């Protein structure tokens, strides 16, 4: 029988939607019993959210003051100690999971599978390589634990309505008694766009490229995003030029997203950018250059001047779009 443990990602007392997507991925393994583990200084609110995900059997909490921040060096040894008896460990392919999961795998002496996009069987998984220009099927060795990150854009979140039991990991378990390293210390965090919809999980994303030509002009995008209730993204060129913050970058080396609606405004569509949006349901492209590669993947294209189209779009949408 397969037993999967999903590592909960959470921030400021709230479960990140990436966790529900990891549960979906784990459900792709037939007959898998799914647990979630919550590491936190105060695990209760997150554990309650996790227990409501359909298909989860048990939520295990590992509450220690040292777990207040998700430091991989601190969390990995605890999770590795909990891994005994599981056939699969899943974490999201967000910066949280990408930082943590390889460290856990190495402690367990096994390889890790990054960015799982589909599950074929308990050991056979599919993942993208070369900026999603190729998809590979990999097979993990039988008899050892499978550690993987889940490409959140590839899975729907597990439904609500579950009623898992919540239990604290026993106080004498190695995961709880282990002495944790103090050589890594959290200092500070700045989240410039914390009051806006989260780029990685938003249903709608409005994204701008170099054609916006300034940080000032990027505000046009934010206004359109407000009208749509959308998150804002950016191409690497726009971020490099200083028009948008780093965390807004969409693409191979930024965020991979799969919103219902993606509007690429003034983005030419480099391969590395297209990698990040291929799974969007509807892609809209507005660009002055009718030859821009973005039009090859767009469901709806408009050749035109951004500075006319974007304010007009905003007006139409506010007027009852």
């Amino acid at each position, binding site marked *: 029988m397969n037993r999967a443990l999903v590592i909960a990602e959470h921030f400021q007392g709230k479960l990140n939607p990436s966790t529900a997507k990891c549960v979906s991925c784990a459900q792709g393994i037939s007959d898998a019993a799914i647990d979630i583990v919550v590491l936190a200084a105060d695990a209760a609110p997150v554990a309650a959210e996790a227990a409501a995900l359909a298909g989860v059997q048990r939520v295990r909490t590992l509450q220690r003051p040292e777990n207040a921040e998700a*430091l*991989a*060096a601190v969390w990995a040894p605890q999770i590795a100690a909990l891994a005994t008896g599981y056939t699969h460990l899943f974490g999201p392919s967000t910066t949280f999971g990408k*930082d943590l*999961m*390889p*460290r856990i*795998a*190495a402690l367990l002496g*096994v*390889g*890790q*599978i990054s*960015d799982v996009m589909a599950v074929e069987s308990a050991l*056979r998984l599919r993942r993208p*390589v*070369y*900026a999603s*220009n*190729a*998809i*590979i*099927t990999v*097979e*993990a*060795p039988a008899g*050892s634990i499978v550690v993987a990150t889940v490409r959140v854009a590839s899975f729907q979140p597990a439904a609500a309505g579950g009623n898992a039991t919540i239990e604290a990991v026993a106080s004498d378990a190695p995961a709880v008694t282990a002495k944790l*390293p103090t*050589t*890594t*210390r959290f*200092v*500070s*965090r700045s*989240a410039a766009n914390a009051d806006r919809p*989260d*780029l990685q999980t938003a249903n709608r994303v409005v994204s701008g490229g170099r054609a916006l030509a300034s940080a000032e002009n990027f505000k046009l995008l934010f206004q359109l995003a407000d009208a749509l209730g959308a998150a804002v993204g950016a191409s*690497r060129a726009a*971020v*490099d030029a200083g028009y948008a913050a780093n*965390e807004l970058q969409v693409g*191979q*080396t930024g965020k991979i997203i799969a919103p219902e*609606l993606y509007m690429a405004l003034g983005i030419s569509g480099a391969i*590395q950018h297209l990698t990040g949006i*291929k799974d969007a349901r*509807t892609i809209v492209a*507005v660009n002055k250059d009718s030859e821009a590669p973005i*039009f*090859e*993947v767009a*469901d*709806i*294209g*408009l050749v*035109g001047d951004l500075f006319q189209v974007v304010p*007009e*779009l905003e007006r*139409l949408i506010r007027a009852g*779009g």
Partner: protein
Amino acid sequence: MSPILVGIKRVVDYSVRVRVKPDGSGIVTDGVKMSINPFDEIALEEALRIRERGLATEVIAISIGPPEAQQQLRTALAMGADRALLVQVDAPVEPLTAARVFLALAQKHQPQLVILGKQAIDDDNGQTGQMLAALWDRPQATFASKLVLDGALARVTREVDVGLETIEVDLPAVITTDLRLNEPRYIKLPDIMKAKKKPLDVTSLADLGVAAPAHAIRTLKFEPPAQRSRGVMVKDAAELVAALKQRGVL
């Protein structure tokens, strides 16, 4: 003071449009331009800047790859690395094996920092730095966009999903680089000449006492991704809104 180790991976150049071989055994690499993984160039640049500030004894560039990876190591030497080491392998190794190689070299050279790219743009794994840190039992600072050395510790700003996070790590530590840590320097012609005289040693997994794992993750096949097809073109904002409504998106 101690050295800095930097990883240099030979990868298909970022500008190449990668194609899957018809038989699904891999991707087409014949006649394809190969380069240093862009994140590794950033790693090397950061190491060079630290050495130039007098805070490291030397920068050692390390590659794990085929004999041809010597080209990328020569480029690293031309950029300013003091010496280079190729761990020659017949087939690509998985990140855990790469981490074991770097562990063996870290134990040998006792560096204050090992700086690696956050991911290689070929397999897009993004694992080696974190795995090395685990095996070495040292701190890791992944996705670094700023690195400040302060005596026996480093303050590192990391690019995380919500924004920027700063952590403090005791040295030695493993750093993985994000895009905006620095802008790598251009190589000048005299540097290429000088690089020819710098030491480039070749070793093997066996020499380093690293065994490839008996139970590795196997790649069964390569497939091209599903293609999106070209959609409709509209004339203006009003038509665009109408088309969105028709698709049920608005």
